[in-house]
């Protein structure tokens, strides 16, 4: 029962460029996760790698991640997640928080 490593790739039309070189968000607490986002030339695609102890939820991960990617029109970004049994709702909430915080910091820098 080694750790699961899941890989996903998504692509949306007219993606918005990620405005940071990289960002980190969250803590791998119980039922929680951390997110590392890096700007990367992926021909407009989004690559996600999830490391999790949970088995058998690949499809749910795919759906949650796809929704976030579409909602935020993400592109050219690599997302790595270290998960410790977070529920799907926590996963999408943390991803939204990470993106919102990144956007907030851009406004401040301007």
């Amino acid at each position, binding site marked *: 029962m080694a*750790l699961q490593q899941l890989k996903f790739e998504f692509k949306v039309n007219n993606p918005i460029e990620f405005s940071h070189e990289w960002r980190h968000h969250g803590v791998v607490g119980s039922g929680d996760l951390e997110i590392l986002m890096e700007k990367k030339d992926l021909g407009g695609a989004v690559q996600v790698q999830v490391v999790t102890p949970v088995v058998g939820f690949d499809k749910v991960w795919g759906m949650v991640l796809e929704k976030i990617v579409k909602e935020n029109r993400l592109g050219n970004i690599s997302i790595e997640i*270290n998960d410790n049994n977070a529920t799907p709702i926590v996963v999408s909430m943390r991803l939204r928080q990470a993106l919102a915080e990144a956007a907030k910091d851009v406004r401040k820098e301007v």
Partner: protein
Amino acid sequence: MSVWNQLQKNSFLESSARQRANGIVDNGTFTELLGPRDRVSSPHLPVLGEAVAFDDGIVTGVGLIGKRPVFVISQEGRFIGGSVGEVGGGKMVATLKLAIGAYHQIKEKYPTSYQGRLPAVVISFETGGVRLHESNAGLLAHAEVMDQFQDARGKIPVISLIGSKIGCFGGMGFVGAATDLIIMSEQGRLGLTGPEVIEQEMGKDEFDASNKALVYRTTGGKHKYIMQDCNFLVEDSIEAFRTQLAEVLTLSMESIEEMRRVGSQKLVEEQLELVKLAVELDPRDSMDVWKYFGNESPAILPELSLTDFLKQAKRRVRKVEGGSVNG
């Protein structure tokens, strides 16, 4: 308002390890070393099917307080209880080594004016000690950290900050006690065997871990302050910890050495006297001990605000000369 300014008002207790590390040094000066982007996580946890973290639960880096480089080690209690494994322990040791290296470099570069520029090490504890999943490596890390303390002794101050939810327990309780001085908040807890473990091993009659008041009377900041196990007691904000830290950094290495609780023959004798006192006094509760040290109505102490407590509380008198240099 900048992120740093917001952090200052934050509860130290509720902040993350990374927030504490950023907020404890001057605005914008913190540089994280081996941060999440370096992805140095535990090699042992994946084999056991346990979640990993990019920083292995310990934030390390360097910042400034005034002109002084401050090397920061900040433990994250939410990741496997802040337990120290091979990678996290290695990061602690390497940070201490960097600080000692910086001490020698700065002394060489500024032969006459190095005093105000010397580095310091700050450790924010939030841990129960060894990560049992990597027990031998974790234990070894504890020993190596203590070894570095000895190398740093008399050169640079090694300062503990304890104000986290988990506190500082297990093997790291020893490590915390072996630093030069300890700054705590009332919510901070310091000890060897944690409340739940005592209850599990000795039964609820011996120690009721669900009795929060009892737990804080036995391991909390106020008790540790009276016992002289911690040197300073501050409010629960990152700013309060930073202010006290900055004040401590103005002291000479001689006065910092005098704040130690362990590390000399005399100090061992002083600790042994305390053990003797514990046997003679046979206290049923921490309040018996507070009373012995001159607090007429010990029951009111836990209820007092920090300001009133610092005014009223009578502390154990240190035997070793200079041992009572306290704020």
